[in-house]
């Protein structure tokens, strides 16, 4: 019973990683860049919800929608002003810029909201579920996180495979030049990818802070890095890969904490990543691109 409870908690944490990892992997797939500021968008999203609920007294759902809107705009603005001018520049330049944007967001948050941690009140109003005669308790946050994760995943797969914009994203991720020749506007496709990824980051932020209720300017950093790990683990560029990678990472982390050592949990997570990459350099579900010459 204990094992089952850890497993469910692992899937729940993993769902959050998966939602964040989707942002990393989609942006990587389309723009071929690692957006290290993605984790900090989560933090901004969480602050927006915190302010909307605690200071403006808005209902949680409205707060989440507001936060998604703010993060969408933030994602588009970051892409437009930090990354778009570097299109065609070396990937190292883009990477360093992304790290710069990450620090910029953290320090802006520090300036605006201060360094002291805020205690985030959970926005989930669902009571915990008691199963097996009270032996297994699943919190409302856990249930909501898993359900939201599954919905986002299904929605995204549907969007990519069945809508015109989704198909455009697939085409751009494979060959920007050829996509342009089909009449696809590459710039707006990239902007839209950032918008979707950032809106998802807002959702992830709310879920994360509802389960782990401390909010400070560096809140997004560690989950961001772990979700990035999850994206690489699953095969960067692959949407199902991000999901599988995220869930597995969450389970590994919780299990390590429960059965091995709380302090070593993060080390174990990254060690697993290294082993996976040694055996399968493209990640679990990464595509092997075979090119015909």
């Amino acid at each position, binding site marked *: 019973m204990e094992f089952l409870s850890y497993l469910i908690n692992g899937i729940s944490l993993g769902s959050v990683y998966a939602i964040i990892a989707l942002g990393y992997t989609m942006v990587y797939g389309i723009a071929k860049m690692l957006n290290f500021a993605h984790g900090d968008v989560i933090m901004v999203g969480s602050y927006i919800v915190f302010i909307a609920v605690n200071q403006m007294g808005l209902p949680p759902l409205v707060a989440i929608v507001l936060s998604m809107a703010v993060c969408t705009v933030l994602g588009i603005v970051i892409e437009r002003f930090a990354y778009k001018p570097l299109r065609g520049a070396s990937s190292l330049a883009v990477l360093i810029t992304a790290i710069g944007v990450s620090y910029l967001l953290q320090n802006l948050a520090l300036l605006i909201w201060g360094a002291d941690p805020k205690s985030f009140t959970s926005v989930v109003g669902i009571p915990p579920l008691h199963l097996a005669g009270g032996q297994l308790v699943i919190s409302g946050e856990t249930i909501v996180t898993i359900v939201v994760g599954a919905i986002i995943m299904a929605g995204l797969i549907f969007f990519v495979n069945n809508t015109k914009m989704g198909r455009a994203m697939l085409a751009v991720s494979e060959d920007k030049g050829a996509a342009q020749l*089909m009449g*696809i506007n590459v710039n707006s496709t990239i902007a839209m990818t950032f918008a979707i990824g950032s809106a998802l980051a807002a959702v992830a932020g709310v879920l994360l802070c509802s389960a782990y209720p401390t909010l400070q300017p560096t809140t997004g950093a560690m989950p961001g890095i772990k979700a990035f790990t999850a994206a690489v683990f699953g095969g960067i560029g692959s949407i199902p890969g991000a999901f599988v990678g995220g869930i597995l990472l969450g389970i590994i982390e919780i299990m390590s904490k429960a059965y091995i050592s709380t302090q070593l949990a993060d080390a174990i997570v990254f060690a697993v990543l290294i082993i996976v990459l040694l055996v399968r350099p493209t990640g679990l579900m990464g595509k092997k691109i075979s090119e015909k010459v």
Partner: protein
Amino acid sequence: MGEMLRVSDLNVFYGSIHAIKDVSFHVNEGEIVTLIGANGAGKTTTMHAISGLLKPKSGTIDFLGSRISQMEAHKIIRLGLAQVPEGRRVFSQLSVQENLSMGAFTRKDGATAIANDLEMVFERLPRLKERRKQQAGTLSGGEQQMLAIGRALMCKPKMLLLDEPSMGLSPLLVKEIFKIIQDVNKSGVTVLLVEQNAKMALEIADRAYVLETGTVKMEGPADELANNIEVRKAYLGC
């Protein structure tokens, strides 16, 4: 026969390399015009400048009365100017049919019209129909070339730019592809063909331009150029 495409005094740089120097040529409606020349003569660069993937430094390109020299690539195709790029560049992760519907991305005339044209492309290129569900990356070189042509036809172009369609194909397949190009032209699509295989290109073209290190060296009716001593020596090997 009106003029469809006119390129005037075009100059294009590839980084710091002056790849195209004062190139001018035109294509009339209904024609097959070919640009021939050796590797590095500037053929593909010219194509990219026309389709908008490269921006010219100076000079103008006009297509059916619109100035397209500084227009973005995704807008140029909407005017009815489609490119079959060098190296085919099909979307290898997508199926044959998905590739073809990608070609119809800009169309707004409804699903029925697009489905009809899909059938028409399948009729014209029956091998694609057999493999409609197959991933494009698993097709042979010749099939990928057919797919790239079919994909470009799906946008209902008035003019087709073809960049080295014979590249890497066996002589038999080259013949097949060139037959397809002729058929497409007969159905009313104007063709600008860039080729290293000068012999084949001159056989099907109405007029030709010879590009050498970024400039137009010679021009004229294709059959005349095919009999020109210099052209024969340099490009036909006889």
